[in-house]
Each structure stands twice: as structure tokens, then as C-alpha cells.
């Protein structure tokens, strides 16, 4: 047989070489990840040493409580990014999530103030949240609009509806559920903090321990491959947007409980939600969004704001430090990926 191509004749030595390159690449990835985590740890350590009362149980629980709302929203965003892929312009993103929460909070608080009970009001908030999510799903999956654009339009719709409903005012609300969330506690930990723990546990179970979660990662990572494996890709992507709406509704109940009211301006949370979901990828071995990673970055953002407060640093610094951290983490990550690409 005469040789016609080199493809079939590559020697074993090349494989060894490839394996060695692989190993060094993986080492590089680990170094980058550890570096990012070490930077986070260093900041925390600084607070532990210099911020009075930072490590007190009371303070830490306080941070967890404060992080509950951001956390639930960030989980919704994380799901959308997992299912839609992490390319920020073409991939999955839900810009409407914070505005959706504002709308749900307005619906919930308005219904309570009109005298309806918790059951109906909670149901209505969930229905509205999921309806907005379904609208996003329709636009992205059904009509094929870029997620960035579709959810941007829906953001305007949701924000406008919230304003129309509340006339840009604070709507006070009280109810047994709200009272329980604020003052109820178990094992010395408040109900609000438990809410974050509970939601986190459920999300981790769904995303990381079920075949559903596994398939969702496949849908986001390589839609063609997922389709070839018989996975109903449109259903999975639609599901993430509806779930994101559901998360917005759950977060709305938490925010109404914390403030005893629905207040305008919830849209400002969007950037923090995005930051949390995107920062979270650095905690993952595969540089993909994970629930655990998102939880860590939510807590980190919470602790950062808290530490600054305790150190009497102006809260105006928080945004800037958060922005600088995003840039740092992403620059380091893209550096690691770059060295991977040019192997």
C-alpha cells in the first residue's frame, strides 16, 4: 500500500507531546483560578483583620440576608447564561430580570395594599414574573431575536408597567408572610437568610446533579451537539427564560419583605446581577457559569460592601471596586485562555 497522506501515520511521540502541552495548559488554568481566588481571599483577610466586627455572627448573617435578593436574581441570570452560552453579544442574557423583579414587587405590594391575601398576591407575582419570562422566551426562541435585544425591549415594557402601576411611588405592604420573612428565625438564623440557603440548595441540585442540568450545559456549550443527542434545544432555552422570570418573582417577595414596601429603582440591580453571574465563572474548573460560583461572587460582593461600611469607607467606592474586580478577573481569565489558544 502506498502512502498518500500523513493523517494516518502520526507517531505516538506526538501524542505524548500533545499530552504534555495539555498538562501545562491545565496547570496554567489552575494557577489563574487559584490566583483569582487568592485575590478574593486576600481582600476578605484584610477585612477580617482591619474591619471591626466583620467576623461577628450577627454581621455575617446580615450580609447573607442582604445577599439573598441579589443571589436569587443572579441564579436566574446564571441559568440563562448556562442555557444560552456565555458569548455576551450572541449568547444567553436576560437584561429584563431586575425590571421584572420591580414589576412583580409592585404587583405583590399593590395587591396586599388592596386587601388581598398573601396566597393570591404571591400567586399573582409568580404569574407575572413567569409571564415576562415567557415573553422573553417567545422573543428569543420563537422569533429568533438576539437575547440582548429581546430582553432589552422587555426591560422597557416591565419597567414601564411598574411605573404605571405604582405611579413611581413607594407602595407599603404588610402581611403574615412578610412578617415571617423579616422576623422569623430558625437556629438563630433569620428566615430571609434561610431563603437564600434553600434556593441555593435547590438550584445546585437541579443544575449540577440532574440530567436536566447536564443537558442544559450541553445546550449552552454546543447546541448542535445537543440537538444531535436528541435534546429538545428550544425547550431548554425557553425554560431558562421562564425560570429567570420565576427567580425575579421570588426575589420580589424577598425585597418587599426587607423594605416592607415596593420601591422604584430596582432596575439598578441589573449591573450587580450581571457582575455576579459573570464573576462566578472564575470559580469553576471549566470556566463556565455555575450556581456555586455565582453564590460565592454574590457573597463576595455583599461582603465587599459590608467591609467598606465597617471600615467607614464611602459606599461610593463599592461600584468602582466591583468594576475593577470584574476587569481584573476577566483580564486574567482571557490571558489564561489566550495562552491556551496560541499553544
Amino acid at each position: 500500500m502506498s502512502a498518500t497522506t500523513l493523517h494516518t501515520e502520526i507517531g505516538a511521540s506526538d501524542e505524548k507531546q500533545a499530552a504534555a502541552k495539555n498538562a501545562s495548559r491545565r496547570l496554567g488554568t489552575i494557577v489563574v483560578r487559584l490566583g483569582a481566588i487568592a485575590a478574593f481571599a486576600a481582600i476578605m483577610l484584610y477585612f477580617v483583620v482591619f474591619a471591626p466586627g466583620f467576623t461577628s455572627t450577627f454581621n455575617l448573617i446580615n450580609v447573607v440576608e442582604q445577599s439573598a435578593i441579589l443571589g436569587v436574581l443572579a441564579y436566574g441570570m446564571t441559568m440563562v447564561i448556562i442555557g444560552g452560552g456565555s458569548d455576551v453579544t450572541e449568547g444567553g442574557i436576560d437584561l429584563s430580570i431586575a425590571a421584572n423583579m420591580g414589576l412583580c414587587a409592585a404587583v405583590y405590594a399593590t395587591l396586599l395594599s388592596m386587601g388581598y391575601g398573601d396566597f393570591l398576591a404571591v400567586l399573582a407575582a409568580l404569574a407575572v414574573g413567569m409571564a415576562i419570562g415567557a415573553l422573553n422566551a417567545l422573543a428569543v426562541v420563537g422569533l429568533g431575536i438576539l437575547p440582548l435585544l429581546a430582553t432589552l425591549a422587555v426591560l422597557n415594557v416591565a419597567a414601564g408597567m411598574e411605573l404605571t402601576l405604582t405611579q413611581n411611588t413607594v407602595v407599603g405592604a404588610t402581611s403574615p408572610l412578610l412578617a415571617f420573612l423579616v422576623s422569623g428565625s430558625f437556629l438563630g438564623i433569620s428566615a430571609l437568610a434561610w431563603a437564600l440557603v434553600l434556593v441555593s440548595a435547590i438550584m445546585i441540585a437541579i443544575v449540577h446533579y440532574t440530567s436536566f442540568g447536564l443537558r442544559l450545559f450541553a445546550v449552552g456549550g454546543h447546541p448542535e451537539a445537543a440537538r444531535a443527542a436528541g435534546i429538545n434545544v428550544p425547550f431548554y432555552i425557553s425554560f431558562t427564560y421562564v425560570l429567570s422570570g420565576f427567580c425575579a418573582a421570588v426575589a420580589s417577595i424577598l425585597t418587599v419583605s426587607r423594605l416592607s414596601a415596593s420601591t422604584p429603582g430596582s432596575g439598578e440591580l441589573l449591573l450587580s446581577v450581571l457582575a455576579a453571574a459573570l464573576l462566578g465563572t472564575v470559580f469553576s474548573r471549566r470556566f463556565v457559569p455555575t450556581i456555586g460560583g455565582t453564590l460565592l461572587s454574590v457573597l463576595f460582593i455583599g461582603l465587599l460592601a459590608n467591609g467598606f461600611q465597617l471600615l467607614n469607607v464611602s459606599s461610593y467606592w463599592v461600584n468602582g471596586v466591583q468594576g475593577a474586580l470584574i476587569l481584573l478577573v476577566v483580564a486574567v481569565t482571557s490571558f489564561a485562555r489566550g495562552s491556551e489558544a496560541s499553544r
Partner: protein
Amino acid sequence: MTGISKQFGVVRALEDANLEITRGSILGLVGQNGAGKSTIIKVLAGIVKPDSGTIVINGQTVGTLTPASVEKLGVHFIHQDRLLVPTATVGEAVFLGHELGAGPFVNRRAMERRAADLLKRFFDMELPAGTLVKDLTTAQQKVVQITRALAQKASVLVLDEPTAALVKREVDSLFAVLRRLRDDGIAVVFISHYMQEIEQLCDRVTVMRNGTDVGTVDPRDTSIDKIISMMIARDVGEMFPKRSVSIGTPVLEVSKLRLGGSFKDISFDVRSGEIVGLTGLLGSGAKEIVQCLFGLEKADGGSIMVEGRQLSLSSPVHAVRDGIAMLPEDRRAHGVALGLTVRENISLASLDRYSRGGFVSRDTENQAVDGLIKELSIKTPTRDALVRELSGGNQQKVAIAKWLSCQSRVYVLDEPTVAVDVGAKVEIYNLLNRLAGEGAAVLMLSSDLLELVGICDRVLVVYRGELAGTFSGPDMNSDMLLAASSGARSIAAGVAA
């Protein structure tokens, strides 16, 4: 499958095509690109709905096929694209869609273990636990993809170009696995461009041409040449057009070029009117040499001269300015922008020639572009058609036209005929001959040894980062090139010109 027809717009992709797949037999499916191989496979996969014809599986006429119903019938496909999730582990990739576990929950450890077992059993391959797909070599990914189908107990297995990325040992074990599956009563369909593989493996071969099956033969009684002539209604001898040009003075001179762990002490020249081949195994450094010549990698030492001028190539920006043209291997990512028009692509690297004061002069540009479209006979509706709408061969011509528009002196080609069918290959060879005929220096990196022997005046072989031999003249053959690329120095030294 009998009498299958399918029309896409005005193109008849399939015309009364038949395909018979039998249990316990390996069927080869061959044909040029566009002959209808992939369409008939897509019909079987339920991705494309036929306009007419019937499909009978196990004696039963089936109506509409969907990807899911096909899978239920036990028909599995190994697609040519590596359809694997890059961030999944090997176990996840093998069992995606059929996860192991209880209820909605998955058992990751069991999946990794089962996948490792299967890999060991079928391919004698061991990977570290939890390895991610993106960290695997191309060949390993292909093996994982095949393992995936095997894990699901197929009764019909369709493999589309499965060996393109595999090394010899893996090909051998794949063939052994396929033979074993055949003996177990599984029907295998094997699509390949590599004729020796068809000859080696298949029990029957169905040849397709122009959307229909032109015959089914036994490869053991039929010569390869006969099969090829069935595929193309043309004499194979014309494959490598001959030319006669006078070879002039050196245009590209490379001396003592070196780059880190990739290659060292590389010296050669390419003369005006000459086509020089460059080849080497994966990782030999041949690819990196080509990248250095275009500034994609920066050499650590040595010199590159074009027409006597010393160049410092730190990026493609400099390379283009100094008259070096590059036809990259990945046409869609680096060669032509699919979303731009033919005109915009052709003038992209030479806009300075068609502009005044920073603004593009449309008339000059249109004139030049029209000239090139005609010169290379690029088949496009208008100069303002999107390159996306052109066929692969015509896209490649647009990529070449871009450099003709620059009037480059040195053409560096990186695997110019990979994934191009026989007809388009011949056109590209003719183009290379034309370039050389007009006095350009052409350097072609290729792994297709027959192509190198057929088209090049000289072939340089790289082995472990060093030039292992230079071959030329009528005695040059692919066995010598292969021997030199795999390090058989004695042979290489014996015949080196």
C-alpha cells in the same frame, strides 16, 4: 431506501437514488462533494425530508422520519463535525441524552467509569478521570464520539469521514471494532474519501454521482481506479495539470530561521515561477514555519528575505505590506468573511490601492474586482453578492483573488485543498500553476503527499523541527516523503536531491 428524490430550490440534490444497507455487512459510500452522499444520509437521519421515494427498515415501510424516531430504530450517526460539548467531561459527552442515574439525578461517577471502560475495551485508550472534551486531541474527540454511538447499542451505524483526524493505530483499532460489530450482525455504513480504507474495510461500495447511485461493487474485485472513474466521469490522469515555466531567481529566502521548541536552523528559498511543497507530521514544526512567514508567530532568530530585502515579520500587517500572501487552512475563520460581499472581500487587503485620502474610490475598486472575478472565473451573481452564498471552491477563489489584488510576490498556502472536492482541487491546482507562471513564488504546506508529488517542483520535508530532506525531479514519490517525515533518515539521505 429506493427512489429517493430531493430538490432544494433549483438544485436536484437527489434523483431517484437508492441505498441498501444490510445487516452484518460494511457498506462503503463514496462520491464527490455534491454527489448526494450527505443528503441521502440526512434523509436517513430524519434531518431532510425527501420529496418522493420510500424507506423500508426491517421489512416495514416507514413514513416520516425524525431524528428521535431514527434513534429509536437503532440507527446512529457519527457526524463529520465533532459534535461534542467542549466543556463536558468524557463521561458526560458519551452519555449525553442517555445519562446514567436514578430518576432525574445523574450518577457522574458511574458515567465516568462506564465511559472509561468502553474506551479501554474498544480502543485501548486511557484518559485521566474527568478530562474535559476541549482538552482532548482531535483524534481523541473522534474516538469519544464513536464510543458514544457504541454505548447506545446501535443496530445501524453510519460513520461520515470518521478517520480524517485519526492516527494509524486508532484507525486500525476502529477498523477492528467495526469488523467485530459487523460480525455481531450490525449494519455499518462507512463514508470516506480515502480509497485504501474503503478497499481495506468494506464488503460493498455504493458509488454516487450527480444525486444518484451509479453502482454498487465489491471493492475486493474492483480496482480503486475503476471506482474513482465511476465517481468522476473523467480520466484521473488530469488530476495534476502539468505546466512548463522557467524558474527564475529566488524571491523568498529563508535562512537559519528558528522558533522556540518548534523548529530550528531552517534555510530554504523559493524562486520566481516555482511551486515548493512543505510537509511534516503534526507537531513537526512545518505549520509553525508557515505561520512565521506570515507573522502569525514571531521567529526567535534567522532571517526572511523577499526579493533581497530583509523583513521583520512581527505581525500579518508587516507580511502583507511586504508582499506575502497567505491562504489559511481555516477558510471561514481566516480566509474570507462570509458576511461581506465578494467585492469587499477581494479588496480588503489592498484598499490603499483603491483609495484616495482615506476614502474608497468605488469606480477603481469595481473595475479591479470585476477584472479578478472574470480572470478567476468566480461564479457569483454579482460582485455585491455575499460570499456566504458562494460554493466552497468559489469562496477559496475569492480568498486567492484578495491577494492577486494586492499583487503579492510570495504565496504561502496552508492546506489549500483540505475539505475540497476533486473538481475544485483541480481548479485550485490550475490557479497555483497560473500564479507561478506569472512569476510569483508559491510555498504550499500540505499533508496530501500525492498532491505534493503531483503539483510541486520541489518538496521540503520537516521532521522534529529540522529540514529532513528536499525532493524533486521525476523520481520523487509519496513513499520517500512519508519516510522522510517519519524520520527514516537513511532513506531520506539516499534520495535527497
